[in-house]
Protein backbone atom coordinates (compact mmCIF):
# COMPACT_ATOMS: atom_id res chain seq x y z
CA UNK A 1 0.00 0.00 0.00
CA UNK A 2 1.78 3.09 -1.22
CA UNK A 3 0.05 6.28 -0.22
CA UNK A 4 2.64 8.64 -1.63
CA UNK A 5 6.37 9.03 -1.96
CA UNK A 6 8.26 11.67 -0.14
CA UNK A 7 11.81 12.98 -0.31
CA UNK A 8 13.13 14.22 3.04
CA UNK A 9 15.99 16.73 2.78
CA UNK A 10 17.92 17.96 5.82
CA UNK A 11 21.65 18.28 6.39
CA UNK A 12 21.22 16.45 9.71
CA UNK A 13 21.13 12.68 9.05
CA UNK A 14 19.39 11.97 12.38
CA UNK A 15 16.52 14.25 11.43
CA UNK A 16 16.06 12.70 7.97
CA UNK A 17 16.27 9.18 9.47
CA UNK A 18 13.54 10.06 11.99
CA UNK A 19 11.25 11.47 9.33
CA UNK A 20 11.81 8.50 7.01
CA UNK A 21 10.93 6.11 9.86
CA UNK A 22 7.83 8.03 10.88
CA UNK A 23 6.63 8.38 7.29
CA UNK A 24 7.27 4.71 6.57
CA UNK A 25 5.35 3.73 9.68
CA UNK A 26 2.39 5.68 8.34
CA UNK A 27 2.43 3.93 4.98
CA UNK A 28 4.39 6.44 2.95
CA UNK A 29 7.45 5.66 0.88
CA UNK A 30 10.26 7.92 1.97
CA UNK A 31 13.86 8.60 0.92
CA UNK A 32 16.45 10.81 2.53
CA UNK A 33 18.95 13.29 1.12
CA UNK A 34 21.39 15.21 3.28
CA UNK A 35 22.33 18.03 0.97
CA UNK A 36 20.89 20.01 -1.92
CA UNK A 37 23.04 18.35 -4.55
CA UNK A 38 22.00 14.78 -3.80
CA UNK A 39 18.38 15.91 -3.41
CA UNK A 40 18.51 17.26 -6.98
CA UNK A 41 20.00 14.00 -8.26
CA UNK A 42 17.26 12.00 -6.54
CA UNK A 43 14.34 13.99 -7.90
CA UNK A 44 15.88 13.66 -11.36
CA UNK A 45 16.09 9.87 -10.98
CA UNK A 46 12.60 9.22 -9.66
CA UNK A 47 9.22 10.79 -9.16
CA UNK A 48 8.13 12.02 -5.73
CA UNK A 49 4.77 13.39 -4.63
CA UNK A 50 6.26 15.72 -2.10
CA UNK A 51 9.57 17.09 -0.85
CA UNK A 52 10.15 17.94 2.79
CA UNK A 53 12.89 20.56 2.83
CA UNK A 54 15.01 22.01 5.61
CA UNK A 55 15.20 25.78 5.40
CA UNK A 56 18.89 26.06 6.08
CA UNK A 57 21.52 23.73 4.69
CA UNK A 58 25.22 24.27 4.08
CA UNK A 59 25.17 24.04 0.28
CA UNK A 60 21.88 25.82 -0.46
CA UNK A 61 18.79 26.95 1.41
CA UNK A 62 15.43 25.26 1.09
CA UNK A 63 13.87 27.94 -1.09
CA UNK A 64 16.73 27.92 -3.63
CA UNK A 65 16.72 24.14 -3.65
CA UNK A 66 13.00 24.12 -4.33
CA UNK A 67 13.47 26.51 -7.27
CA UNK A 68 16.14 24.18 -8.67
CA UNK A 69 13.88 21.14 -8.12
CA UNK A 70 10.99 22.86 -9.87
CA UNK A 71 13.11 23.32 -13.00
CA UNK A 72 13.44 19.50 -13.13
CA UNK A 73 10.00 18.57 -11.69
CA UNK A 74 7.60 21.48 -12.12
CA UNK A 75 4.71 19.52 -10.53
CA UNK A 76 6.51 18.61 -7.28
CA UNK A 77 5.05 20.10 -4.11
CA UNK A 78 6.99 20.91 -0.96
CA UNK A 79 6.71 21.51 2.78
CA UNK A 80 9.52 23.41 4.40
CA UNK A 81 10.71 22.99 8.00
CA UNK A 82 12.71 25.67 9.70
CA UNK A 83 14.59 26.04 12.95
CA UNK A 84 14.15 29.78 12.84
CA UNK A 85 11.67 31.01 15.40
CA UNK A 86 10.96 34.27 13.66
CA UNK A 87 9.23 34.50 10.30
CA UNK A 88 12.34 35.09 8.25
CA UNK A 89 12.33 33.13 5.07
CA UNK A 90 8.62 32.27 5.20
CA UNK A 91 7.73 34.95 2.65
CA UNK A 92 10.47 33.81 0.31
CA UNK A 93 9.45 30.17 0.67
CA UNK A 94 5.80 30.94 -0.09
CA UNK A 95 6.83 33.05 -3.07
CA UNK A 96 8.88 30.13 -4.39
CA UNK A 97 5.68 28.03 -4.27
CA UNK A 98 6.25 26.03 -1.10
CA UNK A 99 2.84 25.00 0.28
CA UNK A 100 3.51 25.00 4.01
CA UNK A 101 6.23 26.15 6.36
CA UNK A 102 6.47 24.30 9.71
CA UNK A 103 8.68 25.15 12.61
CA UNK A 104 11.06 22.74 14.26
CA UNK A 105 10.32 20.83 16.40
CA UNK A 106 7.54 19.81 14.04
CA UNK A 107 4.17 19.00 15.56
CA UNK A 108 3.42 15.65 13.94
CA UNK A 109 -0.34 16.15 13.90
CA UNK A 110 0.15 19.40 11.98
CA UNK A 111 2.66 17.70 9.74
CA UNK A 112 0.37 14.84 8.77
CA UNK A 113 -2.64 17.04 8.24
CA UNK A 114 -0.52 19.23 5.94
CA UNK A 115 0.74 16.12 4.19
CA UNK A 116 -2.73 14.68 3.65
CA UNK A 117 -4.05 17.92 2.24
CA UNK A 118 -1.16 18.16 -0.22
CA UNK A 119 -0.48 14.61 -1.45
CA UNK A 120 -2.82 13.50 -4.27
CA UNK A 121 -3.73 9.94 -3.21
CA UNK A 122 -5.40 10.73 0.00
CA UNK A 123 -5.64 7.16 1.22
CA UNK A 124 -3.00 7.03 3.91
CA UNK A 125 -3.78 4.63 6.69
CA UNK A 126 -1.52 3.61 9.51
CA UNK A 127 0.02 0.22 8.89
Amino acid sequence: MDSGSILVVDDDADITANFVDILTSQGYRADAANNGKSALEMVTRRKYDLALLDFQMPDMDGASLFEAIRSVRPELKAIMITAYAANNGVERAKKAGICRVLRKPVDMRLFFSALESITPNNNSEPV
Partner: protein
Amino acid sequence: MEAALDILIVEDDADTRANLEDILSLDDYSTASVGTLREAFDIVQLPEVSCILLDRRLPDGTADEALQRFSVLAPKAAVIVVTGYADLESTIAALRSGVSDYILKPISPQALRASLARLFRLKQAEERAQQAERLAVIGEVVTSLAHESRNFLQKISSSAELLELIEKDNPEALAEVRRILVAERGLEQLLEELRAYAAPILLNKSLLSIQAVWRKAWLDACRARMCHAQLLEEVSHEDVNVQIDEFRMTQVFRNLFENSLAACQENVEVQVVCKRQDSYLNVTVRDNGSGLDAEQRRRVFQPFYTTKSQGTGLGMSIAKRIIESHGGDISVGNCNYGAEFIIRLPAADGTNRE
Protein backbone atom coordinates in the same frame (compact mmCIF):
# COMPACT_ATOMS: atom_id res chain seq x y z
CA MET B 1 19.38 47.66 54.06
CA GLU B 2 20.15 51.39 53.93
CA ALA B 3 17.51 53.55 52.30
CA ALA B 4 18.32 54.65 48.75
CA LEU B 5 19.94 58.05 48.50
CA ASP B 6 19.47 60.37 45.53
CA ILE B 7 21.51 63.37 46.56
CA LEU B 8 24.37 63.95 48.98
CA ILE B 9 24.91 67.53 50.16
CA VAL B 10 28.45 68.42 51.23
CA GLU B 11 28.32 71.97 52.59
CA ASP B 12 29.84 73.42 55.74
CA ASP B 13 27.63 76.48 55.95
CA ALA B 14 24.58 75.49 58.02
CA ASP B 15 22.22 78.01 56.39
CA THR B 16 23.08 77.01 52.85
CA ARG B 17 22.78 73.35 53.86
CA ALA B 18 19.32 73.87 55.37
CA ASN B 19 18.28 75.84 52.33
CA LEU B 20 19.38 73.04 49.97
CA GLU B 21 17.68 70.39 52.10
CA ASP B 22 14.42 72.34 52.07
CA ILE B 23 14.34 72.74 48.31
CA LEU B 24 15.23 69.11 47.67
CA SER B 25 12.81 67.60 50.16
CA LEU B 26 9.99 69.61 48.59
CA ASP B 27 10.85 67.89 45.32
CA ASP B 28 10.80 64.43 46.93
CA TYR B 29 14.47 63.67 46.55
CA SER B 30 15.98 61.58 49.32
CA THR B 31 18.98 63.46 50.68
CA ALA B 32 21.73 63.25 53.25
CA SER B 33 23.89 66.18 54.23
CA VAL B 34 27.30 66.52 55.83
CA GLY B 35 29.62 69.43 56.64
CA THR B 36 33.01 67.93 55.80
CA LEU B 37 34.61 65.75 53.14
CA ARG B 38 35.69 63.21 55.74
CA GLU B 39 32.05 62.62 56.69
CA ALA B 40 31.07 62.52 53.03
CA PHE B 41 33.56 59.74 52.25
CA ASP B 42 32.07 57.67 55.09
CA ILE B 43 28.51 57.71 53.76
CA VAL B 44 27.49 54.05 53.31
CA GLN B 45 25.30 54.62 50.25
CA LEU B 46 28.03 56.52 48.39
CA PRO B 47 28.39 53.88 45.61
CA GLU B 48 24.72 54.31 44.66
CA VAL B 49 24.35 58.07 45.06
CA SER B 50 23.10 59.77 41.89
CA CYS B 51 24.24 63.29 42.63
CA ILE B 52 26.59 65.15 44.96
CA LEU B 53 26.08 68.83 45.68
CA LEU B 54 29.58 69.86 46.62
CA ASP B 55 30.60 73.12 48.20
CA ARG B 56 33.65 74.64 46.55
CA ARG B 57 35.50 75.25 49.83
CA LEU B 58 35.24 72.93 52.79
CA PRO B 59 37.06 72.90 56.14
CA ASP B 60 39.04 69.77 55.26
CA GLY B 61 39.71 70.33 51.56
CA THR B 62 38.54 71.83 48.28
CA ALA B 63 36.12 70.44 45.72
CA ASP B 64 38.97 70.01 43.24
CA GLU B 65 40.80 67.71 45.61
CA ALA B 66 37.65 65.75 46.46
CA LEU B 67 36.59 65.09 42.87
CA GLN B 68 39.00 62.26 42.28
CA ARG B 69 38.02 60.48 45.49
CA PHE B 70 34.35 60.81 44.58
CA SER B 71 34.93 59.43 41.09
CA VAL B 72 36.14 56.22 42.80
CA LEU B 73 33.85 56.11 45.85
CA ALA B 74 30.70 57.33 44.08
CA PRO B 75 31.10 56.23 40.47
CA LYS B 76 27.43 56.76 39.63
CA ALA B 77 27.25 60.28 41.03
CA ALA B 78 27.23 63.43 38.99
CA VAL B 79 28.85 66.28 40.90
CA ILE B 80 27.33 69.77 41.01
CA VAL B 81 29.65 72.33 42.54
CA VAL B 82 28.12 75.05 44.70
CA THR B 83 30.26 78.14 44.37
CA GLY B 84 30.43 81.83 45.14
CA TYR B 85 30.81 84.35 42.35
CA ALA B 86 34.44 84.97 43.27
CA ASP B 87 35.37 81.38 42.51
CA LEU B 88 33.40 81.13 39.31
CA GLU B 89 36.33 81.08 36.93
CA SER B 90 38.17 78.21 38.60
CA THR B 91 34.90 76.29 38.98
CA ILE B 92 34.28 76.49 35.27
CA ALA B 93 37.82 75.16 34.76
CA ALA B 94 36.87 72.29 37.09
CA LEU B 95 33.93 71.38 34.85
CA ARG B 96 36.51 69.83 32.58
CA SER B 97 37.76 67.59 35.35
CA GLY B 98 34.55 65.73 36.05
CA VAL B 99 32.07 68.27 37.36
CA SER B 100 28.65 68.09 35.68
CA ASP B 101 27.42 71.55 36.55
CA TYR B 102 27.81 74.43 39.00
CA ILE B 103 25.36 76.65 40.85
CA LEU B 104 26.02 80.07 42.24
CA LYS B 105 25.46 81.14 45.83
CA PRO B 106 23.04 82.42 46.99
CA ILE B 107 21.21 79.39 45.69
CA SER B 108 18.12 80.00 43.62
CA PRO B 109 15.63 77.11 43.83
CA GLN B 110 14.86 77.46 40.11
CA ALA B 111 18.51 77.14 39.09
CA LEU B 112 18.97 74.11 41.34
CA ARG B 113 15.83 72.43 40.04
CA ALA B 114 16.77 73.07 36.42
CA SER B 115 20.24 71.66 36.96
CA LEU B 116 18.96 68.53 38.70
CA ALA B 117 16.21 67.94 36.17
CA ARG B 118 18.76 68.12 33.35
CA LEU B 119 21.03 65.74 35.19
CA PHE B 120 18.40 63.12 35.99
CA ARG B 121 17.06 63.26 32.43
CA LEU B 122 20.54 62.60 31.14
CA LYS B 123 21.04 59.76 33.61
CA GLN B 124 17.76 58.13 32.57
CA ALA B 125 18.66 58.38 28.91
CA GLU B 126 22.04 56.80 29.62
CA GLU B 127 20.46 53.97 31.58
CA ARG B 128 17.96 53.31 28.82
CA ALA B 129 20.72 53.23 26.22
CA GLN B 130 22.76 50.82 28.34
CA GLN B 131 19.75 48.59 28.90
CA ALA B 132 18.99 48.56 25.16
CA GLU B 133 22.59 47.65 24.39
CA ARG B 134 22.61 44.84 26.95
CA LEU B 135 19.36 43.48 25.57
CA ALA B 136 20.68 43.64 22.00
CA VAL B 137 23.67 41.47 22.91
CA ILE B 138 21.53 39.05 24.94
CA GLY B 139 19.05 39.05 22.06
CA GLU B 140 21.64 37.91 19.54
CA VAL B 141 22.92 35.17 21.80
CA VAL B 142 19.45 33.94 22.69
CA THR B 143 18.25 34.01 19.08
CA SER B 144 21.09 31.79 17.91
CA LEU B 145 20.74 29.58 20.98
CA ALA B 146 17.03 29.13 20.24
CA HIS B 147 17.76 28.42 16.60
CA GLU B 148 20.46 25.86 17.28
CA SER B 149 18.33 24.21 19.96
CA ARG B 150 15.42 23.68 17.61
CA ASN B 151 17.37 21.11 15.61
CA PHE B 152 18.05 19.15 18.79
CA LEU B 153 14.45 19.52 19.93
CA GLN B 154 13.39 18.18 16.56
CA LYS B 155 15.45 15.04 17.10
CA ILE B 156 14.14 14.55 20.63
CA SER B 157 10.51 14.98 19.65
CA SER B 158 10.55 12.89 16.49
CA SER B 159 12.54 10.10 18.14
CA ALA B 160 10.12 10.10 21.07
CA GLU B 161 7.15 10.03 18.72
CA LEU B 162 8.65 7.12 16.84
CA LEU B 163 9.20 5.34 20.13
CA GLU B 164 5.53 5.94 20.91
CA LEU B 165 4.62 4.05 17.74
CA ILE B 166 7.06 1.23 18.41
CA GLU B 167 6.00 0.83 22.04
CA LYS B 168 2.31 1.36 21.48
CA ASP B 169 1.44 -1.88 23.32
CA ASN B 170 3.68 -1.13 26.30
CA PRO B 171 1.92 1.32 28.64
CA GLU B 172 4.93 1.74 30.95
CA ALA B 173 7.23 2.69 28.09
CA LEU B 174 4.54 5.00 26.70
CA ALA B 175 4.28 6.85 30.02
CA GLU B 176 8.03 7.47 29.96
CA VAL B 177 7.96 8.60 26.34
CA ARG B 178 5.19 11.07 27.16
CA ARG B 179 7.30 12.50 29.96
CA ILE B 180 10.08 13.07 27.45
CA LEU B 181 7.65 14.84 25.14
CA VAL B 182 6.27 17.03 27.92
CA ALA B 183 9.81 18.03 28.92
CA GLU B 184 10.70 18.72 25.30
CA ARG B 185 7.67 21.01 24.93
CA GLY B 186 8.56 22.79 28.16
CA LEU B 187 12.05 23.46 26.89
CA GLU B 188 10.69 24.67 23.58
CA GLN B 189 8.36 27.08 25.33
CA LEU B 190 11.13 28.37 27.56
CA LEU B 191 13.35 29.09 24.57
CA GLU B 192 10.51 30.81 22.76
CA GLU B 193 9.77 33.04 25.75
CA LEU B 194 13.44 33.85 26.19
CA ARG B 195 13.68 34.77 22.54
CA ALA B 196 10.58 36.96 22.76
CA TYR B 197 11.97 38.62 25.88
CA ALA B 198 15.32 39.46 24.34
CA ALA B 199 14.04 40.43 20.90
CA PRO B 200 13.71 44.16 20.26
CA ILE B 201 10.14 45.35 20.68
CA LEU B 202 9.08 46.83 17.37
CA LEU B 203 5.69 48.47 17.61
CA ASN B 204 3.12 48.61 14.87
CA LYS B 205 0.86 51.27 16.38
CA SER B 206 -2.59 52.32 15.34
CA LEU B 207 -5.45 54.19 16.99
CA LEU B 208 -7.45 51.55 18.86
CA SER B 209 -9.95 51.27 21.68
CA ILE B 210 -8.02 50.04 24.70
CA GLN B 211 -11.29 48.57 25.96
CA ALA B 212 -11.63 46.39 22.85
CA VAL B 213 -8.04 45.23 23.40
CA TRP B 214 -8.56 44.22 27.03
CA ARG B 215 -11.84 42.51 26.19
CA LYS B 216 -10.14 40.41 23.54
CA ALA B 217 -7.32 39.57 25.98
CA TRP B 218 -9.92 38.61 28.59
CA LEU B 219 -11.62 36.15 26.23
CA ASP B 220 -8.25 34.67 25.24
CA ALA B 221 -7.19 34.27 28.87
CA CYS B 222 -10.48 32.66 29.95
CA ARG B 223 -10.39 30.30 26.99
CA ALA B 224 -6.78 29.29 27.67
CA ARG B 225 -7.49 28.67 31.35
CA MET B 226 -10.85 27.08 30.58
CA CYS B 227 -12.50 28.89 33.43
CA HIS B 228 -15.37 31.21 34.04
CA ALA B 229 -14.62 34.45 35.75
CA GLN B 230 -16.25 37.82 35.93
CA LEU B 231 -14.86 40.94 34.32
CA LEU B 232 -16.09 44.20 35.82
CA GLU B 233 -15.44 47.34 33.82
CA GLU B 234 -15.53 50.95 34.85
CA VAL B 235 -14.77 53.47 32.15
CA SER B 236 -15.07 57.07 33.23
CA HIS B 237 -13.50 58.65 30.20
CA GLU B 238 -15.48 58.69 26.96
CA ASP B 239 -12.45 58.49 24.66
CA VAL B 240 -10.66 55.18 25.21
CA ASN B 241 -8.74 55.29 21.94
CA VAL B 242 -4.97 55.17 22.17
CA GLN B 243 -2.05 54.71 19.80
CA ILE B 244 -1.04 51.12 20.54
CA ASP B 245 0.28 47.95 19.02
CA GLU B 246 -2.74 45.67 19.15
CA PHE B 247 -0.83 42.38 19.38
CA ARG B 248 1.60 43.62 22.01
CA MET B 249 -1.03 45.29 24.21
CA THR B 250 -3.24 42.21 24.02
CA GLN B 251 -0.21 40.27 25.24
CA VAL B 252 0.14 42.65 28.22
CA PHE B 253 -3.51 42.36 29.31
CA ARG B 254 -3.58 38.64 28.71
CA ASN B 255 -0.58 38.29 30.96
CA LEU B 256 -2.21 40.29 33.74
CA PHE B 257 -5.49 38.41 33.41
CA GLU B 258 -3.82 35.00 33.34
CA ASN B 259 -1.91 35.86 36.50
CA SER B 260 -5.18 36.89 38.17
CA LEU B 261 -6.95 33.74 37.03
CA ALA B 262 -4.06 31.62 38.29
CA ALA B 263 -3.86 33.40 41.65
CA CYS B 264 -7.57 33.35 42.48
CA GLN B 265 -9.26 30.19 43.66
CA GLU B 266 -12.95 30.55 42.92
CA ASN B 267 -15.44 33.28 42.10
CA VAL B 268 -12.70 35.16 40.35
CA GLU B 269 -13.47 38.79 39.80
CA VAL B 270 -11.20 41.01 37.76
CA GLN B 271 -11.91 44.70 37.66
CA VAL B 272 -10.64 47.06 34.97
CA VAL B 273 -10.91 50.77 35.64
CA CYS B 274 -10.06 53.22 32.87
CA LYS B 275 -9.61 56.88 33.76
CA ARG B 276 -8.11 59.93 32.15
CA GLN B 277 -5.37 61.68 34.12
CA ASP B 278 -3.75 64.73 32.53
CA SER B 279 -2.46 63.62 29.16
CA TYR B 280 -2.48 59.95 30.13
CA LEU B 281 -5.02 57.18 30.15
CA ASN B 282 -4.75 55.12 33.36
CA VAL B 283 -5.94 51.55 33.20
CA THR B 284 -6.07 49.78 36.54
CA VAL B 285 -6.43 46.01 36.67
CA ARG B 286 -7.23 44.46 40.03
CA ASP B 287 -8.40 41.07 41.18
CA ASN B 288 -9.84 39.48 44.32
CA GLY B 289 -6.99 37.03 44.86
CA SER B 290 -4.46 36.92 47.64
CA GLY B 291 -2.52 39.93 46.37
CA LEU B 292 1.21 40.60 46.46
CA ASP B 293 3.44 40.72 49.52
CA ALA B 294 6.28 43.21 49.88
CA GLU B 295 8.83 40.90 48.27
CA GLN B 296 6.55 40.17 45.33
CA ARG B 297 5.78 43.85 44.84
CA ARG B 298 9.46 44.63 44.69
CA ARG B 299 10.38 41.83 42.31
CA VAL B 300 7.32 41.37 40.13
CA PHE B 301 8.88 43.03 37.06
CA GLN B 302 12.23 41.24 37.38
CA PRO B 303 12.89 38.66 34.69
CA PHE B 304 12.61 35.03 35.84
CA TYR B 305 10.72 36.00 39.00
CA THR B 306 7.66 33.83 39.39
CA THR B 307 5.41 32.51 42.13
CA LYS B 308 3.62 30.08 39.86
CA SER B 309 4.72 26.47 39.57
CA GLN B 310 4.51 26.78 35.79
CA GLY B 311 5.87 29.58 33.69
CA THR B 312 9.20 31.23 33.18
CA GLY B 313 8.64 34.46 35.08
CA LEU B 314 9.25 36.55 32.00
CA GLY B 315 5.66 37.65 31.40
CA MET B 316 5.56 40.71 33.62
CA SER B 317 8.99 41.96 32.62
CA ILE B 318 7.99 41.68 28.96
CA ALA B 319 4.76 43.53 29.79
CA LYS B 320 6.79 46.30 31.37
CA ARG B 321 9.04 46.60 28.34
CA ILE B 322 6.03 46.73 26.02
CA ILE B 323 4.31 49.46 28.03
CA GLU B 324 7.52 51.48 28.27
CA SER B 325 8.12 51.29 24.55
CA HIS B 326 4.63 52.82 24.18
CA GLY B 327 5.88 55.78 26.22
CA GLY B 328 3.91 54.69 29.28
CA ASP B 329 4.62 52.81 32.47
CA ILE B 330 3.22 50.05 34.64
CA SER B 331 3.35 49.87 38.42
CA VAL B 332 1.98 47.83 41.29
CA GLY B 333 -0.94 49.56 42.98
CA ASN B 334 -1.90 49.79 46.64
CA CYS B 335 -5.04 47.73 46.69
CA ASN B 336 -5.78 46.31 50.15
CA TYR B 337 -7.22 43.09 48.73
CA GLY B 338 -5.94 41.21 45.68
CA ALA B 339 -3.34 42.34 43.19
CA GLU B 340 -3.49 45.70 41.47
CA PHE B 341 -1.55 46.94 38.46
CA ILE B 342 -1.75 50.41 36.99
CA ILE B 343 -0.94 50.96 33.35
CA ARG B 344 -0.37 54.51 32.16
CA LEU B 345 -0.45 55.21 28.44
CA PRO B 346 -0.15 58.52 26.60
CA ALA B 347 -3.68 59.53 25.54
CA ALA B 348 -4.25 59.85 21.80
CA ASP B 349 -5.22 63.50 22.09
CA GLY B 350 -2.62 64.28 24.74
CA THR B 351 0.25 66.71 24.33
CA ASN B 352 2.87 63.98 24.46
CA ARG B 353 1.94 62.39 21.18
CA GLU B 354 4.93 60.93 19.36
